[in-house]
């Protein structure tokens, strides 16, 4: 049986400014509580007050549109992304990260923003959203500012948020017309290592208007460490024709950039995830088509 929580005051402010003042005074912010409550129960933290951000209006919106982008408000529980058709179709990487939450019901209380702000390597949302070029929108001293996810984790266990800053949403740009994304993870407790192992990878692949060559790609690895992108591997894909060998080479380049421990099993698993994330993102990008293609398929002709 887990412990009861230590005593604290619970504040439920109605505005961001009130919340920021309470957090600056030592309060710990809370959204769903999926990360915070186990920490409190384990005695890892014992704050004098907890500041619930769930009563602040305007933070509960989820908006996904392939032309405009994806916007996930701070109060949006992760599972809300699952029935959203545009999130599933055009922002597949984050959709898959939520789909694979362990346990699935955690997505009914945990939020995407809470997952990002926990700054934990074994959390998945940042991996997917970094591949989708996500930006965290932050309420800071009465103003809004944006922090790209690539700059959101300055050090292990830390975010770029200053005390009193509140992440109000995460936003991703709309994907290109012919673009696809994917997220893959391994969540293992192998017999030959002591600690549970989690590795996750996400990728996007974007084609140009002629739908022949890749014009841009993103590649992210997480789980073993806080997520990061691999500029050299990404650059090696730009301008290339798609090919399984190309994705394998890019995955190898990313592995070299990642500097993982020299464990051959870990290396092999990370390689497979990176390669497969790229392959699936590519397949999704190529599966994108417009109405003209449907008609051409019906009459048995290729445009």
């Amino acid at each position, binding site marked *: *049986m*887990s*412990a*009861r*929580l*230590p*005593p*604290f*005051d*619970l504040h*439920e402010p109605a505005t961001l400014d009130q919340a920021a003042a309470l957090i600056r005074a030592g309060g710990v912010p*809370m959204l*769903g*509580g*999926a990360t915070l*409550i*186990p920490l*409190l*129960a*384990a005695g890892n933290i014992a704050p004098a007050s*907890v500041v*619930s951000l*769930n*009563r602040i209006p305007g933070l509960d919106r989820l908006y996904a549109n392939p032309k405009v982008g994806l916007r996930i408000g701070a109060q949006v529980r992760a*599972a809300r992304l699952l029935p959203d058709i545009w999130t599933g179709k055009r922002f597949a990487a984050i959709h898959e990260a939520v789909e694979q939450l*362990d*346990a*699935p*019901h*955690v997505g*009914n*209380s*945990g939020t995407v923003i809470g997952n990002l702000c926990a700054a934990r390597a074994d959390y998945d949302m940042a991996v997917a959203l970094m591949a989708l070029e996500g930006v965290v929108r932050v309420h800071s001293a009465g103003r809004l500012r944006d922090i790209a996810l690539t700059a959101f984790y300055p050090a292990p266990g830390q975010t770029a948020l200053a005390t009193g800053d509140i992440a109000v949403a995460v936003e991703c740009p709309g994907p290109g017309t012919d673009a696809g994304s994917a997220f893959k993870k391994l969540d293992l407790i192998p017999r030959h290592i002591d600690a549970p192992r989690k590795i996750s990878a996400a990728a996007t692949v974007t084609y140009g208007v002629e739908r022949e060559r890749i014009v841009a790609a993103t590649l992210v690895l997480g789980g073993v460490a806080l997520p990061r992108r691999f500029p050299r591997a990404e650059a090696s894909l730009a301008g290339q024709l798609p090919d399984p060998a190309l994705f394998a080479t890019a995955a190898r380049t990313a592995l070299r950039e990642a500097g993982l421990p020299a464990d051959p099993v870990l290396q092999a698993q990370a390689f497979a995830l990176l390669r497969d994330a790229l392959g699936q993102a590519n397949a999704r990008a190529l599966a994108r088509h417009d109405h003209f293609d449907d008609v051409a398929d019906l009459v048995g002709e290729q445009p």
Partner: protein
Amino acid sequence: MTRATFTVNGTARPVDIPAETRLIDLLQDHLAMTVSPDGCGTGHCGGCLVLVDDRPVAACLSLALPLRDARIETAESAESVMATVRQALADHGAGCPACRAGLTIAATHALRISPWITAEESRASLLGHRCRCTAAETTVAAILSAAAALQQRGVPA
């Protein structure tokens, strides 16, 4: 202490609770519900699932006070789908005493979405559970028998 009224299994329950009360503490300590054991405390075992506004939520992962406007349902609910599931799990001997409440909630959630459920969908509804005391297939069989009973009764799909 804060005075708050919670809607649990359709009944308004006023209580005085401290701010640090989790949903599981509210149900166990203040409302004397016995069906929500506190298992892992991290939301991973699925033992303490309850329905909050019709969604399965681990009661060990939520503070109680922010849920004072929500509809909370435990595995003790008298509602007909829940009662059918509870009976089917008992008849099949599915789930250990610690996990049966959570399994009841997960199965009820799945069967309320549709009683025309397949074995595969039943298995998927159990993904968040760690009960290894009884065979998962026994639980699947129980869910399918509850589904058959609901279909026969004509619960709308």
